[in-house]
């Protein structure tokens, strides 16, 4: 399983850079929104927590569709399914490596982009914290969506459609944490909920995903 993790990370780096690109996309969203919305920093600061979370979510989403698709296309998934690794473990490793290559760098980069969007000062801590706690859930939910659509050509968009409603709770609690943090309100409730969602998805979804993959390979 460690071999698998290393392979996935290596592939992410080799093929046009897993990190670099997810990150770049995040950056670009943060840049485009001011172009679209206009440069008024009061408005921008007000919407910054939401935009940052939506941006993180979309960056995750974009790199998602290939979690299993590439392995399916070149036949590796068949071979991995016959290898002595439980499929649940496979899904877990894949989701984890997805997080390492997108969620984690996003979290680290977010403060800089917060600056671009005039995020108010007290919010930075909560920005990092909420992303750190929330993004693993994004990766695991995403892996579930990807395992449902594996084997469908151009599953990418269908995947988005399936996954986005599942992202709603994470998004709400995540953005709410930052907003409350920015206004100096209590953030314990949304943070706890965020943590609970993450733990829940980590514990349960790999099994659902493995089942879906098994069905898809059939």
């Amino acid at each position, binding site marked *: 399983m460690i071999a698998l993790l290393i*392979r996935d990370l290596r*592939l992410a780096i080799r*093929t046009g850079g897993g990190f670099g690109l997810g990150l770049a996309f995040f950056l670009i969203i943060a840049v485009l929104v001011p172009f679209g919305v206009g440069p008024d920093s009061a408005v921008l600061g007000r919407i910054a927590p939401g935009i940052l979370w939506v941006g993180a979510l979309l960056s995750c989403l974009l790199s998602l569709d290939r979690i299993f698709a590439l392995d399916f296309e*070149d036949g590796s998934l*068949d071979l*991995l399914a*016959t290898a*002595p690794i439980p499929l649940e473990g496979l899904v877990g490793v894949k989701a984890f490596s997805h997080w390492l290559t997108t969620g984690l760098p996003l979290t680290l980069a977010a403060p800089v982009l917060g600056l671009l969007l005039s995020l108010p000062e007290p919010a930075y801590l909560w920005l990092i914290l909420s992303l750190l706690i929330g993004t693993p859930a994004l990766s695991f939910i995403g892996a579930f969506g990807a395992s449902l659509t594996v084997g469908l050509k151009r599953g990418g968009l269908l995947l988005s459609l399936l996954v986005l409603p599942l992202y709603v709770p994470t998004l709400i609690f995540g953005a709410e944490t930052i907003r409350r943090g920015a206004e100096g309100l209590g953030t314990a409730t949304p943070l706890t909920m965020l943590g609970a969602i993450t733990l829940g998805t980590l514990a349960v979804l790999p099994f659902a995903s493995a089942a879906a993959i098994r069905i898809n390979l*059939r």
Partner: protein
Amino acid sequence: MELQVVDLGVARGGLPILQGVSFTLEAGQVLVLRGPNGIGKTTLLRAIAGLQPALSGHVSLDPEAVAYAAHADGLKSTLSVLENLTFWAQVYGTTDVAPALQAFALQNLADRPAQNLSAGQKRRLGLARLLVTGRPLWVLDEPTVSLDASAVTLFADAVRAHCARGGAALIATHIDLGLQSDLLDLTPFKATAMAQGDFDEAFL
């Protein structure tokens, strides 16, 4: 190691395509499956490898004992030959990839990214994977596609060595491999259309 397939039936796309396939494969033996295009060789092999459930019948061997090689090689085009092979070795918990490289004359290509290989070189790498699985039963789907004559010989040697070590191989192919092998033609096992029955049957 002994593979017993008893009265196996397999379906593809919800449709039975083979039924009543029975054979026994013992350690040291090679069995070649023949049959025209579309008869269901690939499907049968996938069922034996545990990738899809059988419709009926029984396979005696646990899929854990099977190393499967499909039409596609499962190579990562940005990893080098050595990295590809090492990965599979680690997955199967073996360590030494040198014999596998050697058996398929890949030493000179070890550092080449898989995407820069020609069709036949890719195939050789795909076959070298079998050697690092350490599993007794090889289930191979048209393994010699794109291979030139000398590579086919390398392959035949590898199969022979594997059998000598107590392994066995089940191979679907259209061409002659130059191996001493039993032959099983799948044509007679083609599933016949079921009698028009009630809905439940029709759904199968």
